[in-house]
């Protein structure tokens, strides 16, 4: 982990990262964009998660709900990644040791693995349950995991500022 620590220290001291950290307006603006883009990703994926859990839109096919929300989810993902990388670069040295930030990264890995497992397992049989109001257990687990993980990621992200 020593090389990772060195990378964070190097990134922290690059001139763009320093400029962003010391800026009066740029940092709060990037932070505001990051917070607002949560709505695009987490708020939209939650609708698909609630369909997988059999709570909402029970009369609509799962694949149709996915097509309705996923473009918004991916837009949010792009904005969150870009603004998140900028914020991380500006505070790379502090972030490296921040326990809330480390937890957030771990949760992000889990949130990324969840759909990979979902699409490789229960989604392969989607034709059998696409229109069913009550989805298979594996699909409900995927929806519940996504809802829980994204909520925890938001909470860990908020906590990151408290540990700084």
């Amino acid at each position, binding site marked *: 982990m020593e090389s990772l620590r060195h990378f964070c220290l190097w990134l922290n001291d690059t001139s763009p990262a320093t400029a962003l950290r010391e800026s009066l307006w740029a940092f*709060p603006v990037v*932070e*505001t964009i990051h*917070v*607002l883009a*949560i*709505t*695009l990703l*987490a*708020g*939209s994926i*939650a*609708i698909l998660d*609630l369909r997988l859990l059999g709570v*909402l*839109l029970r*009369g*609509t096919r799962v694949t*149709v*709900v996915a*097509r*309705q*929300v996923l*473009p*918004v989810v991916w837009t949010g993902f792009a904005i969150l990644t870009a603004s998140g990388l900028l914020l991380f670069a500006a505070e790379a040295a502090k972030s490296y040791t921040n326990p809330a930030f480390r937890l957030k990264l771990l949760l992000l890995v889990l949130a990324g693995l969840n759909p990979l497992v979902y699409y490789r397992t229960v989604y392969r049989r989607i034709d059998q349950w696409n229109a069913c109001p009550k989805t298979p257990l594996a699909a409900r687990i995927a929806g519940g995991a996504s809802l829980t993980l*994204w*909520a925890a990621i*938001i*909470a860990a992200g*908020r*906590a990151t500022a*408290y540990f700084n």
Partner: protein
Amino acid sequence: MHLLALFQWLSHSPVGHYMQKSTWAFAVAETIHLLALAALGGSLLIVSLRTLGVLRQIGGAELAAELLPVTIVSLAAITISGVLMLSEESLKCYYSPAFRAKMAALAIAVAVSVPVHLAQAQRSDEELPWWVPVGAAVSLLAWLSVAVAGRTVGFL
């Protein structure tokens, strides 16, 4: 009652005292506020984009009706957590230009989005009056202003 008196009353209420004394209550309320923002913003955005003709996979009325509970529950959660946060620092908020701007934008956002959301849930695409798509766009802009002003309250 003068508005300032209301803010002073909130600050001196048992809830205000609890929020001011507690170490974690503000952080918890802030996190709930953020989670509710994600849910509220997501449901309003998906319904409004549908009304504006972007992403038309699901019928507009069905989508709006199904997401109405998400909108109502997240609106309740964001209001309650917001009042809790306000009670901790109500006088600071009373004099904060960002907070005043946020409340003005909030009044517009609620006044516009409630009738728009209800109309979206009750009528099919062909029956939608002209003011519904206009209202959907105004509502999105107003909610965006509420969120930006809200973030600014923390900075000032």
